[in-house]
């Protein structure tokens, strides 16, 4: 352990006015790792980040930075850089002065300062703007200055709080790639807060999904998407959302609204499902929609809505009893009110326990 782990949360609890915002959170972040904290607004992800930065004190538990209790060390020793959502640039200083200020205060040699900053200005494509004030920069440029200011510190841990949310959509992808490139180049430990799942998927080595002050799942983007630990994760990640159907499993038979669903019994047996009600989760892209029924167990459905996104079409299908599911297709052959048949790709179906809402397979 020790040097392996850059940052560790040990049973960290944060209370605001008596209510737990964060409850007994445990988290280990490895050196050089890019960890994304993802969750809906108000889930506690920003509070977690602010505690890591030392801006908030945990009500209970410990935050260890490189093996030392963060409460007991100074901000210099903590050696953390943070980029804020609104960039927090010093409005009275030029780009160069913004980058230089903290270094100057901490008495980094002038030559060294210059060498470091020139390199950063060049990497971030800011050399031409060095003498501009923050007020004269665009959102994307400000964001790069904020990044640069964090880099200039050469801190071991870099915290980013929704750094891309104030940038135009067109520039966001570019900025995202920049952050990724910087991480690849510098191998800094990064903790990145966002509510945007695409950003999280694109950037994170691991993603921690947080809801109601608890980590719901922490894993690689691939596992989060394909093997969600519980219903919340399953529904939170992926657009359109994963379809969740309440099904019943009895005598090796899976039924939806008392109608048997087509499923390979062999496959079901391997899942070792317990009998009773269950939630079945299936992603829209794993639903096959057909005109003609080929197997009698395919679900009949009516097309309620077709949204054409160009690259793909999103169908809302009514499967009776006011239940709808969403499917994604690419051949654009259906219209509203078409009668179709739906086949769920059985190998992609996930099952969640009815009571605990946990993935049965996990």
């Amino acid at each position: 352990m020790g040097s392996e782990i850059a940052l560790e949360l040990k049973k960290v609890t944060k209370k605001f006015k008596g209510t737990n915002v964060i409850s007994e959170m445990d988290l280990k972040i490895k050196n050089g790792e890019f960890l994304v904290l993802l969750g809906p607004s108000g889930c506690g992800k920003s509070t977690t980040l602010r505690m890591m930065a030392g801006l908030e004190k945990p009500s209970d538990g410990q935050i260890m930075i490189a093996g030392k209790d963060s409460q007991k060390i100074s901000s210099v020793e903590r050696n953390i850089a943070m980029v804020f959502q609104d960039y927090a640039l010093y409005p009275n200083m030029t780009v160069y002065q913004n980058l230089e200020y903290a270094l100057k205060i901490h008495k980094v040699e002038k030559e060294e300062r210059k060498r470091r900053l020139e390199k950063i200005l060049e990497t971030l494509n800011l050399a031409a703007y060095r003498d501009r004030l923050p007020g004269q920069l665009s959102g994307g440029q400000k964001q790069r200055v904020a990044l640069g200011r964090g880099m200039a510190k050469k801190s071991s841990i870099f915290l980013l709080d929704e750094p891309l949310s104030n940038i135009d959509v067109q520039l966001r992808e570019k900025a995202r790639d920049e952050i990724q490139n910087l991480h690849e180049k510098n191998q800094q430990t990064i903790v990145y807060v966002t509510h945007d799942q695409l950003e999280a998927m694109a950037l994170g080595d691991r993603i921690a999904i947080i809801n109601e002050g608890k980590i719901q799942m922490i894993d690689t983007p691939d596992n989060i998407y394909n093997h969600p630990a519980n219903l919340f994760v399953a529904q939170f990640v992926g657009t359109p959302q994963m379809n969740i159907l309440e099904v019943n499993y009895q005598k090796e038979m899976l039924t939806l609204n008392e109608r048997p669903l087509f499923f390979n019994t062999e496959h079901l047996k391997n899942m070792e499902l317990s009998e009773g009600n269950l939630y079945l989760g299936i992603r829209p892209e794993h639903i096959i929609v057909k005109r003609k029924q080929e197997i009698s167990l395919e679900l009949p459905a009516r097309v309620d809505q077709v949204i054409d996104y160009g690259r793909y079409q999103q169908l809302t299908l009514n499967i009776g009893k006011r239940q709808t599911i969403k499917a994604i297709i690419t051949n654009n052959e259906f219209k509203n009110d078409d009668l179709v048949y739906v086949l769920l790709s059985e190998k992609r179906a996930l099952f969640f326990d009815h009571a605990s809402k946990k993935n049965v397979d996990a």
Partner: protein
Amino acid sequence: MNKFREGGWHILLLLICLVLLLPVVFMISNSFKTLQDSYHSMLQIIPLHPTFSNYTTLGRQIDLLRLIWNTFFMAAIVTLGKLITGLFAAYAFKYFSFKGKKWIYLIFVSTIFVPFTVIMIPNYLVISKINLLNTAPGVALPQMCDATGIMLFLKAMDKIPKSLIESLKIDGISSHMILKDIIIPILRPSIISIGAIFFINSWNEYVWPTLILKDKSSFTLPLALQNYISSEGGTNFPLAMALSTIMIIVPLFIYLIFQRYILNSISNSGLK
């Protein structure tokens, strides 16, 4: 209809301007009249026999430069004192958490509602006990702190994003460096405008300095003016008007130089 209403407002505002400006115009015009003219045609705006004699008489009777310097010096000390204490106090109230902060702030702000006449005598007694009667520090000392200033600075600091200060703290910048390098430069326009208002107020101050200052050599302009309109100084109005005209020159310049900041901060602070 809308145009009509707008026109109505314009006329009203013009009338108000006129009401405010007329006394100033009379002051200036009377300062260029002879004593006789000022009695016979007080309301005549253009003097019948314009004369500069009132100013030269003043120059002979009193040490004008000394008076201006005394007033300027006093106003400058008071302004500086109010700015420094106001900034520090607002900074502490805004960015530090300490026990009883809310109450202390409430007590500070409530002093705004205490009329000067109520604390005049206690203040006088204190100043006399510490032997500062008849001195400039005696006048300045009780005015070095002003809750209005604290309130205005707090308002101005509200506009500085919280993340800015947090970012500085994460970078290990000390509180006094944050104040010196970030807060004060950002607040510069507010500081200038609040300072200008403090300066003009203190330049015009009359009651408190009369209590403390007895020696004519330490008089400020408002005190000297009193000599020309009280019974003991006779009733030479043109002379008094000339001195008044001299008195408004410095505040007028200060206002003209800083008017951009002053108007901005008044319209931003919700004080209008």
